[in-house]
């Protein structure tokens, strides 16, 4: 087991390095760190050259890469050319905000999705099963932006007018009310409701399908019949023998999805003005904010790789057949 984890972790290191080379090459090929200041007529040629030199851009590309990598690992992520502030805090905030939104949605979705999936499987072909299957396909086919806008209109406008309220039933933008001081938990939760709903509809739809399929496999398995033939009570049969094996694939899928979350939830964040990684990336791209784009991409890639590793490890923990291969 320990050996398996060590081996998998070691493999991740070259993967990370190769990914960092690709990220560096791609960003370099598509954006120039001096383009933004060069287009500013008030910046002198000397200043541009000094800037170029400071960034090490007059050196050959491999050396530039190594310099950048060294700086990146030491946490020197550069400054934004738009705000003039260090990149670190912006990325950290974006990541944190995205994670609040994403993790909340995942928690809600896993509970709902697993519950619905298991119940559908146990009552296969029941009314509930057909209902949940239909809803899942609906949930997966609703376009995110459309659904988000509908929720905004309904909760921000229609219901508010209907009840003749002064403020919207649910806030439709931002993470907290303007002018709020300190952390008002109720206010934060109210701001989470609509974006979490939008995201959860998708994830519940997907995860309930995974769970149902996994559970059906297990329910029809020979070892479940064995468990019953042993005279185990139904609770033990379900909890010990069915659920654990049925949920193993979902656990890794969820771990991978959480890693991918670092890339932000571009559509949802944009519509709900949620200051997360997605919004940060869009604005950095628009402004040609080289340092932000480069750091952003590297962080996201690292997240994806690390969470893939976590998914592998979780799978091995849950399924002994993997560890001994």
């Amino acid at each position, binding site marked *: 087991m320990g050996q398996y984890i060590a081996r998998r972790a070691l493999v991740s290191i070259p993967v990370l390095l190769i990914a960092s080379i690709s990220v560096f090459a791609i960003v370099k090929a598509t954006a120039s760190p001096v383009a933004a200041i060069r287009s500013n007529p008030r910046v002198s040629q000397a200043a541009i050259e000094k800037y170029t030199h400071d960034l090490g851009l007059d050196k050959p590309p491999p050396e530039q890469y190594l310099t950048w990598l060294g700086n990146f690992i030491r946490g020197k992520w550069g400054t934004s050319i738009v705000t003039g502030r260090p990149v670190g805090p912006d990325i950290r905030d974006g990541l944190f905000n995205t994670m609040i939104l994403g993790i909340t949605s995942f928690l809600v979705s896993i509970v709902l999705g697993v519950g619905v999936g298991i119940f559908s499987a146990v009552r296969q072909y029941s009314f509930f099963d057909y209902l949940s299957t239909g809803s899942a396909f609906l949930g997966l086919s609703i376009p995110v932006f459309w659904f988000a806008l509908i929720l905004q209109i309904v909760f921000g406008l229609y219901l508010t007018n209907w009840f003749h309220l002064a403020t919207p039933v649910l806030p439709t933008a931002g993470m907290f009310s303007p002018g709020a001081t300190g952390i008002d938990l109720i206010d934060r939760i109210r701001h989470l409701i609509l974006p979490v709903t939008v995201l959860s509809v998708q994830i519940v739809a997907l995860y309930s399908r995974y769970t149902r399929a996994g559970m059906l496999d297990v329910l029809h*398995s020979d070892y479940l019949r*064995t468990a019953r033939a*042993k005279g185990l009570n139904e609770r033990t049969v379900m909890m010990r023998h069915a659920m654990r094996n049925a949920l193993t694939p979902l656990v890794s899928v969820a771990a991978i999805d959480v890693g991918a979350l670092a890339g932000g939830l571009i559509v949802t964040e944009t519509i709900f003005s949620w200051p997360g990684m997605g919004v940060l990336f869009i604005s950095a791209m628009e402004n040609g904010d080289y340092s932000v784009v480069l750091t952003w991409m590297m962080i996201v890639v690292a997240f994806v790789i690390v969470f893939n590793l976590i998914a592998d490890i979780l799978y091995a923990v849950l*399924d*002994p057949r993997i560890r001994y291969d």
Partner: protein
Amino acid sequence: MTDVTYFDPERDSARPVIAVEDLVAEFRTEAGIVRAVDGVSFDIAQKEVFAVVGESGCGKSTVALSVLGLLPQPAGRIAGGKVLFRGEDLVSASPARLRQVRGDRIAMIFQDPLSALNPTIRVGEQIAEVFRAHREIEPKVAWEQAVELLSIVGIPRALARAKDYPHQFSGGMRQRVMIAMAIALRPALLIADEPTTALDVTIQAQILEVLLDVRERFDMAILLITHDLGVVAGTADRVMVMYAGKKVEEAPALDLYRTPKHPYTWGLLGSTTRVDRPRTGSLPQIPGSPPSLLVPPPACRFAPRCPRVQPICRTDYPELRKVDVGQVAACHFAQDPGWGPAPEEVPA
């Protein structure tokens, strides 16, 4: 390897462990209701090895699963008859009572031990679980018992191997694990549904040996399901032959080989005693195939394939009739003197 004297009909037959009466089991399918077992009766005495043979799909597993109330849900159901375990009807028993009997008084092992064992639980734990389900017992004691069972069924280094997972065992060893699990509480009846079919020929004999050994050790009766008459020959005391959901013949094992009275039985015998041909593992080279259970033939179900078919066979159902002590056959002509396979039908 048969211990012919171990089961004594005189002594043991009077007290059947299990008596199945007129069992009818059905599956709901898209095409309609499949009556997989249609009015089958038999009983098994203490310590007896009772074999059920027949082609694939004739309803052997359905009989076995019906005894424990384990027909696949929701398609399957017992539509009639009784399963009397020491006189108590299990068909009408409450789910709680059934659960008590399962794994404790009646245990079962299956064809494919790899898929029948939970891949993510240590084998020792899967055995210990049986104790915990039925007895007040310390987990540690249950584990020790599990280890002991593993050595009883002949697994070397049982103490260490108890911590392994099913995929770390060979096919034969896995089936031994299944047997250990089944005999944990010394059941009165062990149901073995094709316990050797998935195994190599050399391993098959070992597993049968283990089964016979534990029956002797624990005084168990065994319901042995197989489609291999070669397995039956050295193992069973009595044999029931099934065809298309019906019982067509039953006899003490030796009589079945010496004087088969149902043409289907001698067809089976003809197809297995061909030692000159490599055994394919599956039974019959009887021409034709079994009838659809959705619309079975109206009278004798074997008529479409029977070498001796007569007009009456297509109009009247042949009830089981007694042909000898302990032998019955469902053929119109079974009681005719001299009725039996022609020499060319049973190759020497």
